Every structure is written in structure tokens, then in C-alpha cells.
């Protein structure tokens, strides 16, 4: 990608190298070059139009409208009379940080991320390493097994997990009663609802991470491993000294996308608990959805969206800094 773009953007810098047929690259025949460049540009624009239109309508416009809206008191009546919305500056933002419910949802989201991300990454890595090294015959079976939750719709997942966690006749309750104990009410308890939700999210997302790691593992040359083994490295040493460092880019990528995904967590609490009991599983996204689409506090919900956006951006930048491969 690099050569083509730079060639198009800065034709003057391009020398008559082997890549000469690159668009508009020639020093000779300027007029012709110019015309063909115009045609090239037109064709480029033509081919990008579908994307640009979709991007403008479904991304750029909503993003801009949300930003504008976050500085107004846009409410229900403004759905039909948007011109009556008032500009209120940063009022929505200042109000947010005095809003107990928002702070609680922020805390819940942080809880979800801090516990959920390391678990997902660790489990995904372990499963990937096991599948990549051990069990030769049933490998495909296990890969599909771990990946199945990823492609299952959340509603189906919710039905299954409700059965598993049902305190009166669920699977877990059955196991508890086998050993003479009473199962706790996982989703109905303020302290257990969040951990249960995390367990479900981890189960659902390990597959994604696993696939990434398997790809990463297979990119590690066999010679490196062999060399390590010849030098007498044990399984653990090989894992720490070879696998993890060489997986670093994959690890970084997996961590970043999992974190972003978890910061946006919405479906799990939406279908399993509706944020309850007593807001103990209310996440920022769910809170935003309810403010916006149940109560029509569009301005307020937009402000919430931007706070979440800033948080996600901050954390992502931080992760990229911390986890970046410094050896290069």
C-alpha cells in the first residue's frame, strides 16, 4: 500500500525506479501524465463513492450530529421540533460527573474490563497454545467448539446461560445440590450478577482471541522452537522465552480490540439482567441506550457517548504505548 499512495501523493519524489509504471510517476511527458492522473483520480473517486457516501451518511454525519447534540438539551419534544433545542454548552458534561447512576455505570464498565480482559486474553492464549501443540486428532473439533460461542447470537446465548445459572433448576444449581449445597442466585444478586456476566462474556469472546493467537503461533518459525529445545529449554521456558515475546504484536492487537469491545459492553446486560439488580450490571453503553431511547434525553446521552469515546481513546493510546514492542 505504501508505494502506491506515496507515488500518487508525491510524484516528484519518485525516481525512475523499477516501480516506474506507478500512476503519474514519470518525469517525462508531463501533459500526458497530467491527463492520465486526472482520469486516475476520477476513477479513484468513482470507485470510492459508494464507501464515501455510506461513510458520510452512517458514520461522519451521526458522529458530528452527536457532538453537536451533546451541547444541547435535545429531548423528546425536539424529535419533531429540533430547532427548539437549546445550546447549553458543557452543562451535560458537568451534570454527568455529578450523576450517581452514570458514575456507577462507569465503575461497572471498569470492573467488567479490568476483570474480563485479562481473563479473556489469558484463557484465549492458553487454549490457543494447547490447540496448537497438543491434541492432534480432535484439533478441528476443539477449535470449532471454542469458536462456536463467538458466532452464536446473543439471544440464544442468553437462553442457554439463563438455564445454566437458574437458581432453582439450572445446571449449576443441579451441581450444587449434588453435593448438598444450595446454589446462589447468580443473576439476581447484586454482588454475583457482574461476575456471572463476566464469565459469560469471557466464554463468548475467548474464541475470537484464540483464533488470533493460533494465527500468531503458526507464524512462529519451527526452527526457533527447535533451537530453544536443543538448548535445553523446558516447556515453560519455551513459552516464556519464545512464544510470548514473538506473539507480542498479536497480544497487543488482541488486548486492544478486547478492551474496546468490553468498554462498549451492551448486549450481555441488555438481554440477561437489563442492568439490574439495582443497577449492579448497568454499563455505560446500556445507560446511554436507556437515556437516549427510553427517556429521549438525546443531548445527555450524546454527552455520555463522547465521554465513553474519550475514555476508550485514552485507554487505547495508553495500551499502545505500554505494550508496544520496544525492542525495535
Amino acid at each position, binding site marked *: 500500500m505504501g508505494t502506491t499512495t506515496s507515488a500518487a501523493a508525491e510524484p516528484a519524489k519518485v525516481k525512475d525506479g523499477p516501480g516506474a509504471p506507478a500512476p503519474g510517476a514519470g518525469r517525462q511527458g508531463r501533459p500526458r501524465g497530467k491527463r492520465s492522473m486526472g482520469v486516475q483520480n476520477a476513477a479513484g473517486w468513482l470507485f470510492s463513492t459508494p464507501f464515501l457516501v455510506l461513510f458520510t451518511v452512517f458514520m461522519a*454525519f*451521526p458522529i*458530528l*450530529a452527536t457532538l*453537536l*447534540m451533546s*451541547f*444541547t438539551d*435535545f429531548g*423528546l*419534544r425536539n*424529535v*419533531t*421540533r*429540533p*430547532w*427548539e*433545542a*437549546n*445550546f447549553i454548552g458543557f452543562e451535560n458534561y458537568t451534570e454527568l460527573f455529578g450523576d450517581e447512576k452514570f458514575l456507577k455505570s462507569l465503575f461497572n464498565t471498569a470492573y467488567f474490563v479490568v476483570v474480563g480482559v485479562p481473563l479473556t486474553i489469558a484463557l484465549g492464549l492458553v487454549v490457543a497454545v494447547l490447540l496448537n501443540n497438543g491434541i492432534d486428532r480432535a484439533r478441528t473439533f476443539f477449535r470449532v467448539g471454542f469458536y462456536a460461542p463467538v458466532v452464536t447470537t446473543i439471544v440464544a446465548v442468553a437462553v442457554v446461560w*439463563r438455564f445454566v445459572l*437458574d*437458581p*432453582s433448576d439450572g445446571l449449576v444449581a443441579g451441581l450444587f445440590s449434588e453435593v448438598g449445597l444450595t446454589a446462589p*442466585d447468580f*443473576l*439476581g*444478586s*447484586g454482588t454475583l450478577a457482574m461476575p456471572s456476566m463476566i464469565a459469560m462474556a469471557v466464554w463468548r469472546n475467548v474464541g475470537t482471541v484464540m483464533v488470533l493467537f493460533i494465527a500468531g503461533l503458526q507464524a512462529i518459525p519451527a526452527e526457533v522452537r527447535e533451537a530453544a529445545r536443543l538448548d535445553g529449554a523446558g516447556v515453560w521456558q519455551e513459552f516464556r522465552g519464545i512464544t510470548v515475546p514473538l506473539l507480542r504484536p498479536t497480544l497487543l492487537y488482541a488486548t486492544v480490540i478486547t478492551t474496546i469491545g468490553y468498554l462498549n459492553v451492551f448486549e450481555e446486560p441488555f*438481554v*440477561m*439482567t*437489563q442492568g*439490574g*439488580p*439495582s*443497577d449492579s450490571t448497568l454499563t455505560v453503553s446500556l445507560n446511554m441506550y*436507556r437515556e437516549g*431511547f*427510553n*427517556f*429521549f434525553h438525546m443531548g445527555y446521552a450524546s454527552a455520555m457517548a463522547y465521554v465513553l469515546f474519550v475514555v476508550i481513546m485514552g485507554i487505547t493510546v495508553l495500551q499502545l504505548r505500554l505494550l508496544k514492542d520496544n525492542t525495535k
Partner: protein
Amino acid sequence: MSRTARTASAALTVALALGVSACGGSGGDDVAADAKQTLTVWAMGAEGEKLAEVAEVYEKANPNVTVKVTPVGWDVAHQKLVSAAAAGTMPDVAQMGGSYMGEFAELGVLEPVDTKTFDKGDFFPAGWSQGEVDGTAYGVPWYVDTRVLYYRTDLAKKAGVDKAPADWQEMRSLAAAYQEKAGTKWGLSIQPSGLDTVQNFYPFLYSAGGAILDDKGEAVIDSPEAVTALKEYGAYFDKGLSNKSVQPGYDVVKDFGNGRVPMFFGGPWHVTLLNEGQPQIKGKWAVAPVPAGTSSVSMAGGSSLVVSKDSEHKAAATAFIKYLTDTEGQADWYERTKDLPANTAAWDSGKLADDANLQVFRKQMDTAKSSPSTAQLTEITDKVDQAIAKVTQGKASAEDALKTAQSEIEGIVKQ
């Protein structure tokens, strides 16, 4: 408005106008009722499917009118209507749930009911009042529903009780007897927390003489009556008579059929669900009026029919609604859907008059109260839901939970 504010709202308007095509204002000339025209109608859920049949009958009698019915799922109904309101593409006639009325009146997309054509006195008071916002009627009641107590008579016999509980005390001791003597898992099924828990709480709240908002629209949820009601509601969870953990989307019908749950508050549609889905308990259950606190008052729900303000077919729309809501149309509608007629005269003939179960609903409807018609209804009931959740989870006393709800709702009402 300051200059910056004006500029900002202008900018916003332009931005929104880009996204929202054709904001309102098609108004135009009204088409006469007898002219050739097409009426667009949106109806939800089961009604949406049945209404097309009725529309065909109507078209035969009124050949100049073509009625185009679009069935809309309840789960997307609210979003669809709001988008239509924003885009100025509301159908000529729409079915609207009682809880939507306040919002859509606020949006200014509803035509006030033509009171020369429709008489308030023909309908149940609660049915009419749920179509009213700030004293103006916007919806003609189409069908009503109210919650009554469903209970298992066979299990009650086992528990040594042979009549329906008439008041709170009797209901609670029956719940305990069901558990102890008839071996049921729970005593009464009521929702502990989550969206719309308030619907389970209304029979308690109203029967105690309480309300969320008073007639003037002021919050009164911390009244002594409301506290008594919530204490009673909470007691069921406290004593293990009701399940503290009910998942969203739980359907009580199956558990009523297998005897895990011997009592619940249900609407008229549960009669059909039980007859069709749980035939093994036919004759082993009955319905009874809501057990009384100071009196027996239940919540009223149902749907109204509204005419869009922008409609060019108001005359024809009114005629169609008249057809659906007069005595005959209502009795016919009951035959098709088992929805309870909102028109009281329709109750006096045929099956409706003879069915003992239905008469319980009929009687309960006379006093039933509809939830307040205000644009912020969902927001307000959400606060009540939270208060109920705190009490059923044992996190707060009824007094404290309702005091919090009161101050929150006061804040919302003032906006």
C-alpha cells in the same frame, strides 16, 4: 435566546434536517369521507394481524375506502412510531398503547379526538382517560385490559382454602398455605425488579389508595398509602413466598400449569394462553378480583386508536375508528381477538355477558386506574421500578426507597 444559542440551534437544525427528511408539515387539504382514498393503519402484535380481516369487511361496506393495515411488532412499535413522528410519516390511523399517549401528544403529532363523534360515556372511564393528556382526548379506546388474580383452585383445596382471597391478609396466608400444604415452589408470582416491575406493583399501590402522581401531576409516591403497599409487596420476597430472581422475559404460564406458581396477576390474554397452552389444568383455576387493601383497584391498560395530525384523510379515519369502537364492532373484535371491549355496551350481549371469568374483568374495569399520561412516564416508572428493586432485594426499607423515588420524580416532573 442569546446569539450563540441561536446560531447553535440553527446549526443543529440544519444538521438534523439533513438526517431527518421532510420534518412534519404536510397538512394539506382534507379529503372528504366519501371520496375515493386509501387509509394507512398501523397496528401492533396480534391486533395487527387480525385487523386486516376486519379491514376487508369494512372495505366491502365502504367501497370508496381502501384500508392498508401494517402489522408492527410490539418490540419495535415505539421506535417505529417515534421515527415516523420525527420524519412526518405517521400513518393516518395508529394503534397506541396507553403508556405512549403522553409522549406522542407532547410530540404534537396527534389529532384531538372529535368529541361530537365519540362519547366519553360509552367507554370505561379508565379506557377513556388513558387516551387523555392534560384534559384533551387524543385516543379513542379500542380495547382495555386490567390485571386480576389468577389462582389454582385445585391446589387451594389441598391447602384447605375454598374461596378466592378477598384482601391482602387472605392472599398472603393463602400464599403460605400453598407452599406449606400444597407443596408449591412459590406462593405468588410477582416481579422483583427490572423493567416494568411497576405493572405488578400497581394492583397493590392502587388498592392501598396510593398513586405515583396525583390529579395535578405532582409526585405522591412517598405517601403513607404507597409505603404500606410497597411494604406488603416486599413482604412476599422477605418471607420467601415470591421468587427474588425473575429473568427478563419470564413467562408465568408454564409454571402456573405445572403448579410451581399457584397465583399471579394476569391480563385477559392469559385466559386464552392457559386454555390453549395448559389444557391439563382446565377447570382447576379461576380468576378473582385483586385482593383489597382499603379497596380492590387494579391497573388498566389497553390500546387506543389515534389519528395523525398530518393525515389528509381525517374524516375517513374517524369513520373507520367509529366502526371499530361502536358496540357491534367491539363485540366482533372480541370474537376475533378476545381483546376486552372498551365500549361498555358491547359487554351486554352474547358470550361476553355469559362468561363468569370475563365478568370478573368487567367488574374490575369499573374501578381500574390507568397509569398517568405524561411524556416522562417511562422515566418516572423507572424510578419506581428501582425503589421496588431496592426493597425486594432487601437493600432499603419501603420508606427510604420511596423517599428517594419521590425526590427523583419531583425533579423529573418539574422539567
